[in-house]
């Protein structure tokens, strides 16, 4: 089990973002985490990435409680733009590369080209879509064990969305890497997802193998999203 969550609770002032969820993810699986805004998806990802701490319960990555050491295995693609606007694109990539021993700068250059990003441009001058593409470059420039993609397509223009989805299919090492992806754009990544977990108000509303759920309920993932998670 690469991700093991047991009775996980997270409280923010005035609200519980997570209400005792438990689940596990096997190595090499692609798990969709679907739910409306405020359903707890981003909080779950932030806990797994080590950005925030659970109020109660445990979150383990690769058999270890989330800590500085587990971050060495996790590529986290945040919903927000986490990049330094004053850095050039390549400077930002090289900055991150210094913290991950197995970061492949040739791969970064190849991905920048594939994503149509100018390495010499300042990050601050990039559009939202271009920044979204840069996040994908940074996510797949090193062979992480777990990829956490929090709304990689939100607010991104259709051409950038297309490139990001193409990159996902091209760069993801199926069977080796594990990916947790949260998105509203279910139709864009629907065929990519192997397992799915619908979240509502901090709880798991439905989860299971995507194909099995489709067959069992006679609904597409998009339809399930509407009936279960909204």
């Amino acid at each position, binding site marked *: 089990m690469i991700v093991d969550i047991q009775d996980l609770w997270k409280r*923010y*002032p005035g609200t519980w973002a997570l209400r005792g969820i438990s689940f596990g993810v096997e190595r090499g699986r692609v798990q969709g985490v679907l739910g409306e805004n405020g359903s707890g998806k981003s909080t779950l990802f*932030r806990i797994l*990435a*080590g*950005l*925030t*701490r659970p109020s109660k319960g445990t979150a383990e990555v690769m058999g270890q409680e989330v800590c*500085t*050491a587990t*971050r*060495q295995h*996790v590529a*986290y693609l*945040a919903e*927000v*733009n*986490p*990049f*330094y*606007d*004053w*850095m050039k694109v390549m400077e930002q990539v090289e*900055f*991150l590369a*210094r*913290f*991950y021993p197995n970061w492949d700068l040739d791969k970064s250059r190849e991905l920048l080209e594939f994503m149509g990003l100018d390495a010499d441009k300042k990050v601050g001058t990039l559009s939202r879509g271009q920044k979204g593409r840069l996040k994908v470059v940074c996510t797949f420039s090193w062979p992480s064990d777990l990829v956490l993609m929090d709304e990689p397509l939100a607010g991104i223009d259709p051409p950038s969305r297309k490139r990001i989805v193409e990159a996902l299919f091209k760069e993801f090492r199926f069977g080796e890497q594990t990916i947790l992806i949260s998105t509203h754009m279910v139709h864009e990544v629907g065929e990519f997802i192997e397992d799915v977990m619908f979240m509502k108000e901090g709880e798991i509303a439905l989860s299971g193998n995507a194909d099995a759920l489709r067959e069992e309920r006679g609904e597409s993932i998009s339809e399930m999203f509407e009936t279960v998670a909204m």
Partner: protein
Amino acid sequence: MNTWFVLYVKELKANKNIFLFLLVLIVGLVVYGLTQPVPMPGAKMDWEKISGIVLPGFAVFTLLISMPFLLAHAYNSEWKSETHYQMFSLPIRQYKVSLAKIAAVGSMGFVGGAIVIVGMYIVQMRVSDFIGQPPPVSASDFYFLSGLVLIAYLVLVFGLVTGMEGVKYSVKQYRGLTAAAFFIGALYLFGRFAHQATEMLDFLGKIPIQIQHNHTTITYQGIGVAPFAYMILSGVMLLIIGLAVYEKRAEI
């Protein structure tokens, strides 16, 4: 390259505009002040006559007052621009991120401090030359004492700010209020125990200074090490509290 050094260089680059602005301002004030005529003893005080002393003095004030704000800015700009997401997801301990910020602002403080200390010594030399007396304090005593004051001040101020930022980002609500409460509490405790602590540290002795007066050298034994040691110890304690809280409690 060591990951801490990577963070340190990043902090220098991130704040380079504000650091350069401050350095240019300090150098400008010192140089302009030194190009003004030396005030004649007993002359009527007007701006033209005293600017040679006031402007380098203002450079000292500018440097000292800017240090805590620069360090607070280094933390807050990270959180405001949301780049703290990047910092928190890196496989490094968060106290290293804090130490890199402190070191970057500290470097600026030392460079600026060296400029103003040399500037102030030149002011002393010019006044002494003008009145035909040797400088009252020797260069070595002047640099040693000024350096000690600067270091003690920087350590205390960086400790205060690091503590404030540490507690600020470890709570989810009332962050400004929490930081303000920490600041007031820390200052109160600093003042409350100042007397007892300096008495306890009195064993550290006093710094002898040779003062020149009317071509006679007088050895003055009056400057105790204890107040500086107390400032440095308090600063280090606050620094440890701030770093520990930021490492253990700060979260997004």
